[in-house]
């Protein structure tokens, strides 16, 4: 829309203050009002008048528990975002290559056990020598990103904890049955799968597990959780009802400490919005400040650049 004359803008001020003008007209009026010594104050005054009308509505009392929940979520998300935006990014300049390796595209990842847990999951466990610990006192800048990349394991979409438990039990029963009638090689092939399931379940339970609920802006309930087993250094993130990223984009997980924003890999939820990621990464047990997921270009970024999709304070 072309620039408005003063008279045109002035005649629309009340409608703009009431939010009863079209977006095009409202934009044109506001642009004019920014520079007009008469329309600017007039519009501000009308908006204050409209706000004063709000004092007449009957007082509505929100349920205290729900209000406290909203307040808590707001503060948790605010804290998570603050930490995500303020923590420095550690690592060498070619950090992006390390991040890319988290998705299985890099050259430096040396998975130790790539045997699929089920048809829809993969776990990469790096050699012990590549596992790293960050220094809670501030040595995050020295983090070896290739090592981080190698230690982050990715389990792709679909699995559920309960399903894993029941599947584990089913496999146990199958192995027990096979042991009695089948050659040893059959149970040999099933045993690692059971071990993987047991490992995942153990990682999600126990006194050392810290659970970080992950929220988005509109949900009343968490749409994901990060479970961090501080004894075993296992990280398991589940999401549900998460919309798919935009075409050409992916979601990237960040572990935020006071000193660093550590990429924990990229993922895309399945058609139902579910995801499960499994990482193994050593972090000082008091270092985690928050967990955040941002939308980034395919392959991930060395530092968060896109909008925060979900987040939670530790």
């Amino acid at each position: 829309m072309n620039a408005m004359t003063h008279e045109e803008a002035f005649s629309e001020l009340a409608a703009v203050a009431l939010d009863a003008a079209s977006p095009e007209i409202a934009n044109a009026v506001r642009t004019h009002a920014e520079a007009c010594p008469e329309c600017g104050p007039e519009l501000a005054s009308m908006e204050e008048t409209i706000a004063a009308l709000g004092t007449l509505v009957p007082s509505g009392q929100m349920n205290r528990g729900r209000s406290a929940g909203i307040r808590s979520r707001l503060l948790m998300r605010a804290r998570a975002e603050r930490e995500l935006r303020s923590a420095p990014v550690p690592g060498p300049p070619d950090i992006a290559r390390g991040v890319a390796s988290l998705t299985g595209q890099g050259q430096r990842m040396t998975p130790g056990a790539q045997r699929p847990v089920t048809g829809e999951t993969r776990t990469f466990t790096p050699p012990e020598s590549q596992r790293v610990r960050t220094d809670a006192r501030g040595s995050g800048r020295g983090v070896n990103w290739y090592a981080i990349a190698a230690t982050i394991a990715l389990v792709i979409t679909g699995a559920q904890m309960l399903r894993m438990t029941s599947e584990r039990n089913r496999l146990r029963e199958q192995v027990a049955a096979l042991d009695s009638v089948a050659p040893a090689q059959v149970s040999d092939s099933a045993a690692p799968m059971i071990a993987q399931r047991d490992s995942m379940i153990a990682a999600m339970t126990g006194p050392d597990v810290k659970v970080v609920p992950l929220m988005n802006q509109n949900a009343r309930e968490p749409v994901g959780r990060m479970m961090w087993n501080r004894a075993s250094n296992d990280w398991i993130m589940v999401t549900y009802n998460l919309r798919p990223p935009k075409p050409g984009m992916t979601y990237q997980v960040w572990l935020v400490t006071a000193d660093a924003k550590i990429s924990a890999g990229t993922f895309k939820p399945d058609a139902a919005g579910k995801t499960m990621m499994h990482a193994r990464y050593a972090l000082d047990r008091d270092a985690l400040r928050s967990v955040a997921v941002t939308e980034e270009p395919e392959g991930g970024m060395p530092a968060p650049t896109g909008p925060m999709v979900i987040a939670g304070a530790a």
Partner: protein
Amino acid sequence: MNPSERAPSYSGENGSNAEDTALIRRIVDADETALGALYDRWVRSLYSLVLHLLKDPDEAEDVVEETFWQAWRKADSYEPSKGAVSTWLLTIGRRKALDRLRARKRNREDPIQDERGFSDLRSTSPDPGSEAEGSELREHVRAALRELPEEQREVLELGYFSGLSQAEIAERTGQPLGTVKTRMRLAMQKLRAPLSIHRGAAQ
């Protein structure tokens, strides 16, 4: 504009605008405790407004959360010269509520509801929990509404509560668009003048 015509800053009920402005500064500095304090000060007023507009507690809660989240994200866009923090917050919340009303209308879920008018507000009992200055402001607003000619009040109601555009109001009332614009402007001016008395008395 004559400075005396400046409408009052709606800040009496929950403390001074200076306190709110200080909270906004802290929010700009990424202090989430300031967001909590701002929430405590304004959640009741904001919730009351959006609940009255939406008539749906769940949606009203969503709008409250979205509004405070926007306040956190966009705190640096707040300009004290353009009005009180409360005005800024309530304006954000009302716009979000109106967006939802418009979405309902597009989905034909919620035909325009005439009961969202000022008629029930003109005789609403004061909020017993409010402080004196807030009640006084309400009385000024209520008195100003009572003085409005019916046709001006109707236009104001349709814009304020239903999220109708001026063109839609013209269609709904059967009045020419120019008439609607004029009535809306006159209503606003008449409302503002008595309210300035409140501001003058408060200073």
